[in-house]
């Protein structure tokens, strides 16, 4: 009886892990710049991994395994973001420009940013007080 309940919990956790993991791997290929890839892949690297931990906690065969899984989850709460932060800080410090989609949900003032480079027409230089530098 109890085993059915734990298996159902594990089924729910593993299903969410499969959904988020697939989405994360797709996101790793869908976006053009490291920051956006990182945001999408944190679905796989954080949420799916945590769901797997929860599911295997429900299926844990003994207390020795279960306590270690709890400790592992506690450490993952610290180490997961730390790894992500190291990568993001590396990208930020090496000066990679964040990607701006052509038509985002909210549309800021239209600018001619293409691939992170400011394109200016040569025959009409922007006045120095335009604020774009």
């Amino acid at each position, binding site marked *: 009886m109890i085993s059915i309940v734990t298996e159902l919990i594990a089924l729910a956790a593993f299903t*969410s892990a499969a*959904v*988020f993991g697939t*989405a994360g791997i*797709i*996101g790793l290929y*869908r*976006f053009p710049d490291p*920051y*956006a890839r*990182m*945001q*999408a892949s*944190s*679905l796989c690297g*954080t*949420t799916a991994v*945590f769901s797997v931990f929860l599911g295997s906690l429900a299926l844990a065969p003994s207390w*020795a395994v279960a*306590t270690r899984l709890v*400790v592992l989850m506690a450490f993952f*709460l*610290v180490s*997961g*973001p*730390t790894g*992500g*932060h190291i990568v*993001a*800080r590396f*990208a*930020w410090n090496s000066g990679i420009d*964040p*990607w*701006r*989609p052509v038509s*985002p*949900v*909210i549309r*800021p003032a239209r600018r001619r940013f293409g691939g992170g480079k400011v394109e200016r027409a040569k025959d009409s230089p922007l006045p120095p007080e335009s604020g774009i530098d």
Partner: protein
Amino acid sequence: MRAARAWRVIRFGITSIALYAVWLLFTASLDAFSLITGAVGSVAIGALTHDVFIAEHEASYRSFMPNPFLLVAFLVFLIYSMYLSSIQMLVALVRGHASPRVVHFRTRLKSDLARMVLSNAITFTPGTITLDLDDDHLTVHWFLATTRHSRAAGEIVKGRFEGYLRRVWS
């Protein structure tokens, strides 16, 4: 002078106890040999490293000692908000909507540890990544940005984390 010495003893004690707790957690055995080895090791390492573990200029006991019940409540809230923002990211990914933006804002938290936990919590929820933390100034890459106003962005990104953390490390 006297206060500094008492503070040093307290820091040494806290470091050794924390090390011993981790030792018990990892070895998970109650043999006499294991217990004694762990005690000797944690006292020795505590004597060597308590200056690194808790810096001397740390304001007081309350600035690094969390309230344990509120800390557990915060962790549960963190996991809940992780799933919530994961679902938002999933919807955005399927529909192909994205408005990535780098926002800057300040935090009101005083303790260094609480600031570090805040930036970790922001990175842990999918959709926001802390790029840089400089004293109280955070630089965050926000995937589903809805505003360009920096203070409003800060309130949205920090969410209720900051309010919880102010009570955890009061």
